[in-house]
């Protein structure tokens, strides 16, 4: 599983080195243990853990998932073990692996976000390199969507959290807004180290025979290849309108898919839904990436980041 090639896949973001740019996305890899039998965890660039809140959450009633064309809807409802179990069991377990751990936090108030972060910070393990703040989970009725759709709230939240940690602070943006540009800007100004995008897109599916929504929460979050073009466009919008580092997420099913994000400007990517099809997916893409970079005759991965060439296409248009 070692990268035998001479191509350097490592990338440094906010002072933290990632051995390669492939992380696994929050909520699609549990806390590591579940997938460890099927995935070479030490080969990953990092693991973003399932959103954790102050108290444990049982999650939503079934039905929680629906397959859709090239995608799936979910309304898991942020089922999680709570921050105490997280620091007592999950972080120590994950500390045994040679990969970066990023703790994703969900909450329904700025205070809760802060409390959860502080509790993790006080119990951080050596490979716990930072936090990803889920301001956008559309599944939870009493929170989530609100934060992520208001630049002011995101600003306030980011500033509050920034004071509490020197580790990586990553704000995970929702695509369910008119433009992500104002959010990228406030995150940059408020001192976040990066933004990650996108979280799931609001979607819905109806059981035609019963006349009922298929998900118990009526609407849910759409993920998978179906949303990849949306995710790439959102990353492009963020890149055009800010300089904050970007972590690309959405429908990645190959190194080629990941490259679209890298070229647009993402320094890291996260693999989500694909883990359900193959829990070792991110490692495969990492290996494929080496081949792609060799073909492109690039010595190190970071040389492709942000190389999008729009001049030639737009010139043709006479803009």
């Amino acid at each position, binding site marked *: 599983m070692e990268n035998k090639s001479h191509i350097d896949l490592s990338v440094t973001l906010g002072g933290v080195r990632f051995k390669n740019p492939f992380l696994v996305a929050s909520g699609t890899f*549990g806390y590591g243990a579940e997938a460890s039998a099927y995935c070479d965890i030490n080969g990953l660039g990092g693991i973003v853990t399932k959103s954790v809140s102050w108290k444990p959450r049982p*999650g939503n009633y079934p*039905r929680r998932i629906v397959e859709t064309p*090239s995608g799936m809807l979910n309304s898991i409802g942020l089922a999680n073990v709570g921050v105490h179990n997280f620091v007592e069991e999950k972080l120590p377990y994950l500390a045994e692996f040679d990969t970066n751990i990023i703790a994703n936090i969900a909450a329904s108030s700025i205070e809760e976000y802060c409390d959860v972060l502080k509790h993790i910070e006080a119990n951080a393990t050596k490979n716990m390199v930072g936090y990803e703040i889920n301001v956008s989970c559309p599944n939870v009725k009493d929170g989530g969507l609100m934060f992520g759709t208001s630049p002011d709230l995101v600003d306030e939240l980011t500033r509050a959290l920034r004071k509490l940690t020197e580790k990586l602070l990553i704000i995970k943006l929702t695509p369910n807004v008119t433009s992500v540009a104002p959010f990228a800007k406030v995150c940059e100004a408020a001192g976040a180290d990066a933004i990650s995008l996108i979280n799931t897109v609001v979607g819905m599916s109806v059981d035609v025979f019963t006349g009922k929504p298929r998900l118990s929460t009526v609407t849910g979050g759409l993920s998978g290849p179906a949303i990849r073009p949306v995710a790439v466009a959102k990353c492009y919008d963020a890149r055009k309108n800010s300089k904050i580092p970007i972590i690309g997420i959405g429908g990645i099913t190959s190194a080629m898919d990941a490259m679209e994000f890298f070229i647009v400007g993402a320094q890291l990517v996260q693999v989500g839904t694909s883990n359900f099809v*193959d829990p070792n997916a991110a490692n495969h893409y990492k290996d494929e990436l080496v081949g792609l970079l060799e073909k492109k005759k690039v010595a190190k991965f970071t040389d492709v980041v942000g190389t999008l060439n729009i001049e030639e296409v737009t010139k043709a248009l006479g803009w």
Partner: protein
Amino acid sequence: PGQFVNVLPKIGFSDPMLRRPFSIYNAIGDEIEIIIQRHGRGTDILADAKVGDVIDVLGPLGSPWQFDSQDYETALLLIGGVGVASMPLLTKHLQASGTAFLSYYGARTANMFADEYLTNVVYATDDGSKGYKGTIIDKLRNDLKDGALKAPKLFVCGPTPMMKAAIAVSEEFGIPCEVSLETEMACGIGICQGCPVPTTEAEAAISGKKFYLVCTQGPSFTKESIVL
């Protein structure tokens, strides 16, 4: 016995995208057999696969039937339709361990039984074309009433209404009962949290969990632990 595999209908395409779960019907060495009932596009693709086609399989997954529990002497395998898929390996195991068992297998009509790997089978058909005429639940209740079955435990797999009826029967006779569930699944290994089944209040009080995951904690559960 009771475990399953998660099978990708088509490699390299995203419609359909997710794997489909199937019980392990039979296993010899490295090879496994599954039986597939056509249900939608995924099962159609798999049912139409030809000898030599490469199929991507993840497994074995899930927890086995709790056949080692000490609360019974005679295993009653209660089977409805394609629910038969998890029974051959359970049969093998019971035989190997010398446990007494009987299979109660119901179907609409005689030609719908997949019983090549079963033994000690009591049949029931809706149309009476094989075995008891009526539901297999009725047949089971009659036999339990007769009292000839010694310290029985039900291992049930079939359509939900049948499983509910089986639970009712087990309560009526005060016997242990385990049911094998089907829910939608994405990952099959406990990372998506997509396959919950609500626990009973009593169970939640003990485990602190409002839901169990069918893919890892199941697919089979004791009737006391979950709400069907």
